[in-house]
Every structure is written in C-alpha cells, then in structure tokens.
C-alpha cells in the first residue's frame, strides 16, 4: 500500500493506492495525523486506487470523526469504488463519513 500526499490551493490530498488492511492501516493513520499536525483543514482522501479496505482501514477513518467535528476540520473521501463503498455501508459508516464521486464534488463540499 502506498500513500501520496499533495497540496492544491487550500486542499490537502491524500491518495491511497493498494489494500488498506491490518498490516497497512497505520500508514493512513500517520498521513491523516501529519495533515492535522500541519494545520490542514480541508482534506480530500482520493480512493481511486484503493482496491480493498478492512475494519482496520474503516477504524482509522472512524477514529478521526470526533476530532474533525471538534476542531472544524473537514475530510471528504472521493473516487471510491462500489466494492469499497459497500464495506463502509455494512456498518452505516457511509452515512457518517462524507463520500462523494470525484475531486470537484469534494472541493465543493469543503469550500
């Protein structure tokens, strides 16, 4: 699993490539923690190349919901395949985490 980060205007993009499971989810956790530590307030998680997610990956996203609500940051996930989205839906996390089709919609949500 690889994570690439980039900054475009006020948007901080975290792109996940590969499988997010019990062995790799720590990398996503570190990427989000680093973004928050750097004061990033508008985070887009690009899931275009995310092929698989398990509870370990879901747990990382879940653990930041409260922090984002508390400090006024926003995180939006985009470009998610139906297969990955189904995993979020099993526990209703697709209702608690903002998921949109593409980058433009993500920017619109964060604007």
């Amino acid at each position: 699993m690889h994570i690439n980060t980039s900054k475009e205007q006020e948007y901080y993009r975290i792109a996940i490539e590969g499988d997010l499971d019990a062995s790799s989810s720590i990398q996503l956790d570190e990427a989000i923690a680093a973004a928050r530590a750097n004061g990033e307030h508008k985070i887009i998680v690009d899931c275009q190349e995310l092929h698989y997610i398990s509870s370990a990956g879901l747990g990382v996203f879940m653990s930041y919901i409260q922090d984002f609500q508390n400090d006024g940051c926003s995180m939006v996930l985009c470009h998610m395949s139906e297969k990955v989205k189904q995993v979020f839906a099993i526990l209703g996390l697709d209702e608690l985490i903002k998921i949109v089709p593409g980058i433009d919609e993500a920017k619109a949500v964060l604007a």
Partner: protein
Amino acid sequence: MAHKFIIERNTQNLKAVRDFVNRTLTSMSVPDSDIAMMVLAVDEVCANRMLHSPTRVMPNDIELEIKNDQGKLTFVIRDTGDLYDINAHHEPDIKQLIADKRKGGIGLLLVKKIMDTIEISRSEPYTVLLLHKSVNMA
C-alpha cells in the same frame, strides 16, 4: 477437490489469504458480490487471530480450508492460538466507538454481519473456527 492454504500467522500475509479466498471462490463460480464480502470476513477473522490470539506452541501457522456443498460454503480456520468465542463477543456501539476515537472493535462485528453462523471449538493444540454461508450459485 481440497481447497487448503497454510500460511504463517503474520499480518503481512493477509493479502495472500485474501487472494486464496478470492481465487478459490471464483473457481467455484460464486457470484462476485458474495466473494467480496467473504474475502472480507475471512480476512477479519485471520487478522483477529494473528493479532489477538497468541500462540505458545508451534506451528505458528493458520490453516484455511474452503468447502462447498452446493452453495453451502464452509470456511475452516485452524491455528494454535488461544480460543476466543466470537459468538460471545459483545456487539459494540458504533457511535460510542466514534466518541471514544477508537480505531478497533468492528472487525468481528463485520464477520457476524456477513456470515450466517460461526462455530468455534478447541481440540488441543488447535482452535478451530467454522464460518458458514449459503449463497445462490449462478
């Protein structure tokens, strides 16, 4: 035909576990949508065994076997780790986990939601889990 797979209990090997489940269920003509969910369930159980059920005896492996009786699928997962009764696992409150900023606690919940029934037993030195799922075959 036996569909068996043995691999060291190491989370770096979870991808190989998923690939085995995917490959085997595809060869059995199980529908893709069912395969994705069962790959997830088996991955969750194996990850849980590797991380939370320590073993004190060799071998430090997980054995996985998949049986198909006309759409009645059984996943046999066997290792020397401690017994943990998934069926007695307290179902977590998702909103409370979020409030507590917890990263774990939902893996076994996913397994219970995906599989029909789960059996767990101990036959020294092994713990054996049977995950059952009926699917409509194409």
